[in-house]
């Protein structure tokens, strides 16, 4: 990813900041400039909305054929996370083995390195998810 594109997306990647339609209340992540349900009524009115970072695993897969830069993490878990605010987020699940993950598992967002542009390029940070240990131990 080129530097300006990453820079433009840093707020939602760092802090899970999406948008909310003031007309119908739907929350979007990644952020949208227009609500697809309300169309022009929402134009220019979308509000920033911070997700809580909590969620549950809706579905997942184990990746054995890694994408570039993920060789040292394979096999790794990619999941769709259902958030209480509404949006479903695709993200990596870390700090857990593939055999331990399950649908419905409570997870929470953490701040991690996502990728880096070679040894001299920028490091891209963003969200991944880990098991929500406090919820699991309840």
């Amino acid at each position, binding site marked *: 990813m080129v530097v300006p594109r990453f820079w433009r997306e840093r707020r939602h990647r*760092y802090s899970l900041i999406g948008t909310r339609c003031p007309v119908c209340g739907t929350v979007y992540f990644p952020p949208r400039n227009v609500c697809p349900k309300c169309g022009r009524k929402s134009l220019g009115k979308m509000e920033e909305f911070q997700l809580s970072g909590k969620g549950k695993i809706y579905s997942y897969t184990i990746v054995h054929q890694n994408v570039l830069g993920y060789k040292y993490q394979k096999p790794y878990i990619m999941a769709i996370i259902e958030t209480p605010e509404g949006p479903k987020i695709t993200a990596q699940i870390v700090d857990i083995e593939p055999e331990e993950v399950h649908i419905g598992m409570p997870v929470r967002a953490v701040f991690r390195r996502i990728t880096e542009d070679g040894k001299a390029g920028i*490091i891209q940070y963003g969200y991944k998810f880990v098991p929500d*240990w406090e919820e699991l131990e309840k």
Partner: protein
Amino acid sequence: MVGIVTYGSYIPIYRIKSAEIARMWGDKPEHPEKGLNILEKSVPAYDEDAATIAVEALRNALRRKNIPGEKIGAIFVGSESHPYAVKPTASLIAEVIGAYRAHAADLEFACKAGTAAMQNVYAMVKAGMIEYGVAIGTDTSQGQPGDALDFSASAGGTAFIIGKDEVIAEINDTVSYVTDTPDFWRREGQRYPSHGGRFTGEPAYFKHIISAAKILMEKVGTKPEDYDYAVFHQPNGKFPYRVGKRLGFTKEQIKQGLLTPYIGNTYSGATPTGLSAILDVAKPGDRILAVSFGSGAGSDAFDITVTDEIENFNRDAAPKVWDMINRKKYIDYATYLKFRRMIVEVD
């Protein structure tokens, strides 16, 4: 009253046992346990670094008490493993919490950069320049494979927000002691630090900690028995007890904040995380002495009193230090090399 308004720590989940490192290098498994009093150490995951640890520690602090980004006037991040040689970690922290008007800078002073950050923020709050400031000590410290540091260099960090209102732990005073003592160093471009072996002890660790602690106790008029807790820099599990004994502190005063036997030396994170473990259990009126040590060499000493406000403070909103220490996953030496990016490949 100027002091700690909220605090939070982060320790990665992965651990490697000293016995596993000893097995790799042909040492007796009991050698690091007996010689250094280090049973195991924390290891950052492949996608963790000093910046991610700093963010997680600060988020834990904000879970306990949310201070809006626009009220944060300063961010100082102490580390000797900043992810970039040129590009601040502090600006990343500012972006994460939306503190766009903060005075922000990275600090480096071996293992005492975290407490140096605390002193800077404390001074700015006391001077009335800022309302709140963030001080972080964070590291994913480097140790040459096979060296004594391989057993100790670990990962972790702690964030403090210092302010004047609703202070849970008042910083009564702070002093420093510094000399040009080259006990441990890393030259520009070198991957691993070098050290002076036994020279890191008497003229470095012990001289600076004892000097700073004595200067502080003389200044504020306290004696070791006036303190409920003491935390000293902890490069291994033995030095803190030894320096404490020489100053007149008991093992009981030191135990709660001595983490190195279970997570290794978190460098800039070490004294702040020991202090964090004490704040996890402290009661109103408890008095704490905290003394860091950074090679090269200097010590920062703090005299701290826990206030009644801690009773209203939501400590349970974020994981406590000893809970994070006890939540762990063991890895072998090969995985450790992979996580620490020590495997050399063709570019």
